[in-house]
């Protein structure tokens, strides 16, 4: 697995490319806002507020960042605008640090039982695609992987995962469409356990977090898995679409309530000006971001590394 320090140069380029839009349309604005200014004044802070809010950082987190910068500016009266970038960067890194204790993706321990990852999220965020990419990464790292097709609801979801399993070259357990998702999960875990598989990834149907029955179904899947492996799932990965606005907070809250989300993957970061949503979510939810999706190719899923990420956002101004 790619852990800290293993961020290859090629990967970094890919991240830079993927985040290009974020950088150009969001943080390069800061430089523009500062043209002709020598001191951080209210106008500069207003500009900063606009930049942060338009990048989906969210009102609360934006106000928090502004407040912290205001404090630093008042303590240290002559903060120049050239220092603002540095200060802002430090504040953002600090916010990310609060919830991301360690960089890198999932750490798969040596254990006789499979390490079970259940993937959840609302409709259309990219769960199945993320699973395909994740399976590829584990396989590259020399792990044996089995996929469980527990999205038995959405038309052709099973087929979609099947195509990924062929593409990656890992086995898949299915019972077809309309089957009981908990039963599929049970089968997947039972057969993986018997075979001594390293990692099991369970796909689930997209569900809006305010649908009580569907949310309860997740709990059921969880309970049934524990009949096979007592502490499964080891990880519940919540997939969020990076272009989602403030509803992302609600999603994370509600999913956490029923399934104890342990990590988040942020998808579609290549197409959005909203790298900022990572910051808001980290601040408000205290759930670590483990992966980010920056493209449609099989390699376009990366273990999240906060300093690389922030570097990437600020690259233009360095």
């Amino acid at each position, binding site marked *: 697995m790619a852990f800290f320090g293993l961020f290859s140069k090629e990967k970094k380029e890919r991240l830079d490319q993927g985040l290009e*839009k974020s950088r150009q*349309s969001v943080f390069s604005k800061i430089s523009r806002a500062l043209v002709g200014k020598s001191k951080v004044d209210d106008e500069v802070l207003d500009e900063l507020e*606009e930049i942060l*809010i*338009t*990048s*989906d950082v969210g*009102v609360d987190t934006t106000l928090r960042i502004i407040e912290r910068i205001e404090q630093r500016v008042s303590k240290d009266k002559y903060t120049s605008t050239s220092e603002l970038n540095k200060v802002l960067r430090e504040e953002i890194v600090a916010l990310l640090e609060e919830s991301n204790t360690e960089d890198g993706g999932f750490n798969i321990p040596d254990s006789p039982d499979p390490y079970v990852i259940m993937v959840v999220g*609302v*409709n*259309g*965020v*990219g769960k*199945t695609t993320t699973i*395909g990419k994740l399976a590829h990464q584990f396989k590259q790292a020399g792990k044996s992987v089995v996929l469980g097709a527990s999205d038995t*609801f*959405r*038309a*052709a*979801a099973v*087929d*979609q995962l*099947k*195509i*990924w399993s062929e*593409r990656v070259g890992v086995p898949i357990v299915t019972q077809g*469409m309309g089957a009981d998702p908990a039963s599929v999960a049970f089968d997947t875990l039972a057969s993986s356990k018997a075979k001594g598989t390293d990692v099991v990834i369970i796909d689930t149907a997209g569900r*809006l*977090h*305010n*649908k009580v029955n569907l949310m309860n179904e997740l709990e059921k899947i969880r309970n049934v898995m524990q009949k096979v492996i007592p502490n499964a799932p080891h990880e519940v990965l919540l997939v969020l*679409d990076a*272009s*989602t*606005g*403030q*509803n*992302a*907070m*609600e999603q994370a809250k509600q999913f956490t309530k029923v399934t104890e989300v342990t990590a988040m993957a942020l998808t*579609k970061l*290549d*197409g*959005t*000006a*909203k790298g900022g*949503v990572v910051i808001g979510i980290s601040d408000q939810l205290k759930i670590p971001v483990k992966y980010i999706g920056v493209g*449609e190719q099989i390699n376009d899923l990366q273990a999240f590394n906060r300093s690389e990420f922030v570097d990437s956002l600020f690259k233009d101004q360095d």
Partner: protein
Amino acid sequence: MFDNLQDKLERSFKVLKGHGQITEINVAETMKEVRRSLLDADVNFKIAKQFTESLKEKALGQDVLNSLSPGQLLVKITHDELAELMGGEKADFNIQGNPATILMAGLQGSGKTTHSAKLANFLKNKKGKNPLLVACDVYRPAAIDQLHVLGEQLGIEVYSERENKNPVEIAKNSIAHARSNGFNVVIVDTAGRLAIDKDMMDEIANIKKTISPQETLFVVDSMTGQDAVNTAKEFNERLDFEGVILTKLDGDTRGGAALSIKAVVQKPIKFIGTGEKMEALDEFYPSRMADRILGMGDVVSLVERAQEQFDEKEARKLQKKIAKDQFNFNDFLSQIQQIKKMGSIKDLAGMIPGMGKAMKNVDIDDDAFKGIEAIIHSMTPDERESPHIINGSRKKRIAKGSGTDVQEVNRLIKQFGETRKMMKLMSNKGNMMKMMSQMGGMPKMR
């Protein structure tokens, strides 16, 4: 988030209370809250700013209706402005043509395939059309299968070419297929694409050029954040789409993206997706969306309901009576009936900002007024006009007539006296809402 907003609004209402006109000073705090609530709902930053500024212009100097507080009036103005911004003229949906073609476009995961099928189902069942679905998403694994499965469920044919990787050709061939097989509407599902992906945008522009659709619909997830504006703009520049389908509105998103898109590209929202079922496709109502974005639609409907039920002349008469201490049981009864007309008491109470939370767990019996009405109905016209003539023997008769006992009659008369006193105090301000909420609270005291 929601409770939070209501609390804040209530606080800003307090600031506004007692002012007869909306002024620069009393409007500032409320505008701040409105702007904040728009941002929380994902309305684009610039649009939220423009909107609150033009709103302030509109609101300044407006006289506050007797029955409303300035804060409530502001909310109503806000709501009306929002609805106006999103509504405009009613959007036509053009399905004339032989065949009529509809092109679906949007980002990944916005719900194009599902809504292609929903739309086909809508046209088949509600408009009596014979639609053909076309699978032009040749990239996402199993996207073609997905459309086939949905088509089968709905009994609608799906056209696909599994070996062909060129969506422009597939779209073109599908039109010929529709013509020779008697389909009169063709719905073309396409792959999700990013607005910044030049090749993919060229591709869909080519599809559009080739089939010249009657309707190109931009499918957008209602949970989209600040970037909705940019995406919509870029898609519109390339495709000049006719309208928007807003999906996943069955979630709890406030859907501010809808406003942003409308404001930036000036294209109507034509349909909304409201659930996983194939029937869950609705036409768009600007007013409901305004409620949702504000997250305070309840206040709006309360105000509207109060306005509906409230006859200004009657109110003035009543106020005079109260001032002269002539408020009697007839007036009391008609007040109760007015409140009852507005809806259930619990609903009404819940609509008042701040009350909602307090009332959540209180069970109010809607029959609470029944006993009071029975007692009043058992009074003679004279007794209703001049409550002071009610003596011991009259009380006994009233109790018997209403199936209650003398204590209850006493209690009502006492409450009536208190209400009368309170009303007299309040009549100076003429705050009808306050009066009604007081009266609504009465049966609880029993």
